């Protein structure tokens, strides 16, 4: 990715704090015209997206019969992938908002890419409830709007809560990302020429780094972070209630909200590592995305993995201690039923593989981290698959039992969703700085000083 224009910093330089001018230079350089690698990547992504589009077209044309849905399982791959993408979004807000409130200095290097990941992941997640519909063109019926029938949405339904939660999350996280970009876009504007200067002048809203602007901006940033923090915790709780409010054995549990939130942050941190490792290599950002940043992300993964493992154990304990035959049967079925392979992947990737991160040697090795992060992504997709599909496949009576496997049409749409997400991310890194210029400077000593100070 434009590697010719970006020299790799030598080993000594990597450990030297950059100056303000070097931060501008190095980060604005990532916006240089894309190289061959970027175009090849974009080509693959667009092909995958076209295939996903074709699969959706088939579904619209011939109906949901083209999927692998098998009675009684009608919440399958699409709802699994919806929850997966909403979960991915969560760590971005954790890093940009919650760690901001905790004044964690290390977040400044990783927060912009994570926040962009959040927005694109929610944009991807939002497609799935629509993809899941038989008549997708009536998706707007779920929104509460005045209509000639005089009927409103049922506000007691978790599906309507979901509409409010996801649309609020998309709006607020996109606003947070855009507002955070303004000072950086102004810095790019000041060095850009031609059409780019005009574009960035408009996007920066005429920002000039004045004391008045910073004064109100920082207050706004604080309050957006304060509002985003409960929001992020609420969104995955609401998503979990899509299941927990139902009476399906294995779903109907009060533990679901914290269990889902921990899982979301776990999967999101995994995805941040998956994205940042290649980004660091492609743009030679070793001086900014340091090993300690990855180590901190790995520690977050480890922490949330232990919370997730504890939740898994609690689920089994609750099923046993409840004395409820259906709950017990569901959890026995999860381990020893026809979907044992899903549970094996889920527990293996989410509980046992992250244990490797206890080793400092492994969590400071980017190759290991990257591979582990892929396992985390896989494991967390399967977690949702196991919860949703095995739950529905083994309800109260034997005549309700069934077996479902996703077919190529559904998997094509899932692959298309990854390409949709990647397309936005590839575009983002070439139009906007994937590292936060002003926040990285804030963490550095100002010119003429040796200590950073600051907020």
């Amino acid at each position: 990715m434009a590697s010719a224009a970006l020299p790799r910093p030598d080993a000594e330089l990597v450990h030297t704090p950059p100056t303000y001018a070097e931060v501008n230079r190095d980060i604005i350089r990532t916006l240089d015209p894309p190289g061959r690698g970027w175009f090849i990547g974009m080509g693959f992504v667009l092909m995958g997206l076209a295939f996903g589009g074709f699969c959706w077209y088939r579904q619209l044309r011939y109906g949901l019969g083209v999927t692998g849905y098998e009675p009684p399982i009608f919440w399958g791959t699409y709802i699994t992938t919806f929850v997966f993408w909403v979960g991915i979004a969560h760590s971005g807000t954790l890093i940009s908002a919650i760690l901001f409130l905790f004044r964690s200095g290390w977040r400044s290097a990783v927060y912009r890419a994570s926040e962009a990941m959040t927005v694109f992941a929610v944009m991807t997640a939002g497609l799935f409830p629509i993809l899941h519909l038989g008549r997708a063109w009536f998706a707007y019926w779920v929104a509460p709007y005045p209509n000639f029938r005089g009927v409103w949405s049922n506000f007691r339904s978790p599906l309507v809560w979901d509409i409010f939660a996801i649309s609020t999350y998309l709006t607020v996280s996109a606003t947070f990302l855009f507002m955070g970009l303004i000072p950086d876009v102004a810095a790019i504007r000041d060095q850009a020429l031609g059409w780019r200067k005009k574009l960035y002048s408009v996007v920066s809203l005429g920002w000039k780094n004045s004391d008045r602007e910073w004064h109100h901006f920082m207050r706004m940033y604080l309050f957006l972070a304060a509002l985003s923090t409960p929001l992020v915790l609420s969104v995955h709780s609401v998503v979990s209630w899509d299941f927990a409010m139902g009476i399906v054995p294995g779903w109907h549990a009060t533990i679901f909200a914290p269990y889902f939130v921990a899982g979301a942050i776990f999967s999101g941190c995994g995805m941040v590592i998956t994205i940042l490792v290649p980004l660091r290599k492609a743009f030679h950002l070793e001086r900014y995305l340091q090993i300690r940043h990855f180590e901190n992300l790995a520690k977050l993964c480890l922490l949330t993995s232990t919370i997730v493992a504890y939740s898994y154990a609690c689920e089994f304990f609750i099923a046993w201690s409840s004395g409820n035959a259906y709950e017990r049967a569901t959890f026995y079925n999860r381990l020893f039923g026809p979907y044992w392979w899903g549970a094996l992947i889920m527990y293996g990737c989410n509980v046992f593989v992250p244990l490797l991160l206890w080793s400092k040697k492994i969590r400071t090795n980017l190759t290991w981290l990257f591979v582990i992060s892929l396992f985390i992504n896989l494991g967390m997709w399967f977690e949702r698959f196991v919860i949703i599909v095995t739950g529905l496949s083994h309800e109260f009576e034997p005549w309700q039992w069934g077996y479902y496997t996703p077919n190529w049409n559904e998997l094509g749409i899932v692959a298309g969703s990854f390409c949709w997400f990647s397309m936005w991310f590839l575009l983002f890194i070439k139009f906007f700085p994937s590292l936060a210029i002003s926040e990285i400077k804030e963490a550095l000593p100002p010119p003429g000083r040796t200590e950073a100070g600051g907020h």
Partner: protein
Amino acid sequence: MATPPVSANRAGVVGVFGTLDGLLLAAREMKAKGYANLRVYSPVPHPEIEQALEKPVSPVRLFTLIGGLTGCSLGFAYAISTSLDWELIVGGKPIVSLPPFIVIGFECTILIGALMTVLGMLLNAKLPKFGRSPGYDARFSNDKFGIVAFGGPQQLAQADALMRAAGAEEVRDV
């Protein structure tokens, strides 16, 4: 460092500083001399700049509060009024079921609160503003700090001298 001759038609002067400490020294000195309408440019926000300029608390928080309260009220009002508009009993629950409506009220609190916070910032920071800002220099988004003083010819001559004494790399008319 020689002070340049004072021009009669200058509106203000801008000093360009290479260090934060130089900027802070100039800002404090000028504040002490009674310069009220100073404008400071900085590539990063810094609490010491706010202290030097004796900034009052930003009113953005009021926008957040009003937005949050409005959103909360609207969220509950929306769910309650639409439920009363068509009294359909679902699952044997009351028509106005407040516990599930908390979710709607909460999400609307966050949504309207966040949007009002942004509006508060834009109004108070006077953004968007696409015209020229007096004294702004592209270096202020890179690694330099700037301070602009406005006033009459004598005040500007004094500001010019103060900035140079504080270590300004460059002082010019705006």
